[in-house]
């Protein structure tokens, strides 16, 4: 039996902000999030923010992230920020891709540990109509010690639909 534990699933449609609350807890230290559905009906490049234990989305400039963008049709790109209001490029692209969806895996470390920052890393691959694939391999951190219990994916664009699955890595205490 594997030590990965399905916690729950969530989905949404026709929205620009997608929140999943009460998924991180003291039960686990490490979490895995799979994005298995992402219909892009308008330009959308989604960033990730965390939600604190009061249910508030943290939008302060306390995020740092770095990624390598891998593209089948062009040169690769380095992106980074040491002070941002979200962790960028979780999903999406600059062109609409209603048929193709995406594939993404995200790992989150120590979200509820109030003596540690919340770290994360992710990898994804997205389809850009007329171009090809663009994916990311990335790292990020929320530089506060707030207890984090959920996450948010948002953009100024609109998602056609999104679906995520949330897992915890079992710990024996």
């Amino acid at each position, binding site marked *: *039996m*594997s*030590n*990965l*534990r*399905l*916690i*729950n*699933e969530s989905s949404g449609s026709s929205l620009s902000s997608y929140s999943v609350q009460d998924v991180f807890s003291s*039960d*686990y230290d490490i979490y895995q999030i*799979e994005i*298995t*559905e992402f219909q892009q009906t308008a330009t959308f490049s989604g960033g990730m923010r965390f939600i604190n234990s009061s249910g508030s989305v943290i939008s302060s400039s306390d995020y740092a992230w770095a990624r*390598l963008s*891998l*593209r*089948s*049709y062009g*040169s*690769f790109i380095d992106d980074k920020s040491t002070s941002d209001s979200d962790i960028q490029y979780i999903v999406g692209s600059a062109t609409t891709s209603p*048929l*193709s*969806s*995406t*594939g*993404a*895996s995200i790992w989150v470390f120590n979200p509820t540990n109030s003596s540690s920052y919340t770290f994360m890393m992710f*990898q*994804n*691959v997205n*389809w850009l109509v007329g171009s*090809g*694939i*663009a*994916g990311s*391999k990335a790292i990020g951190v929320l530089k506060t010690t707030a207890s984090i219990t959920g996450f948010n994916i948002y953009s100024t664009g609109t998602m056609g639909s999104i679906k995520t*699955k949330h*897992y*915890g890595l*079992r*710990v*024996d205490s």
Partner: protein
Amino acid sequence: MSYIGTQPNNVKENIGLYNPNDITALTKDGHWGGSLELIAEQTFSTSVANIDFTSIQEDKYDVHFMSAQVKFGSGNADLLGLRFYESGVLETAGVYQIATQTGTSGGSFGEAKQTAYSWIFVGESTVDYQNVYIYFYNLGNSSKYSFCTFHAQVLDSDSFFRFGGAVLPQASTVDGIRLFGGISGENIGSAFDIKLYGMKQI
């Protein structure tokens, strides 16, 4: 709950105290057992050119996870590539798109990408073991393209990595995965252990 005392956290871990009602409820919520569910494992101690996984339960899982440990054989480089079966037919045309980053402990880094390739290159070795993990997304969804992301760690002349992603940009049902040694007939390796899992979903 038949257990008298401190309520066990059955979602967090199996402490061995369950009755049939507990099991039924936990199974319904997807909390019974581990969430990385083994679909198939193939092990070999001789060189082969192809390994097929043809019962991948694509109708049950949106996400598949594969781990591969491959020991180098002899001769030319042992490659590790992927192709997909669409409704039982192996796709061998130049339709795959790939974008990968490579790097070595010797300090060499590079990009490798293709927009119309006949297979997905994941790993390669000329010296020792290569260890690979791959995530597959939406293989069984006939209305979506089939994506994968992967990371290979290899002990070659230097320590070597390759990570990236690929897509079969065709809305089709992928019901099989072929691992193979490349279009020139290379072998995958002299010994290997490859496991395919489904990521549990409700």
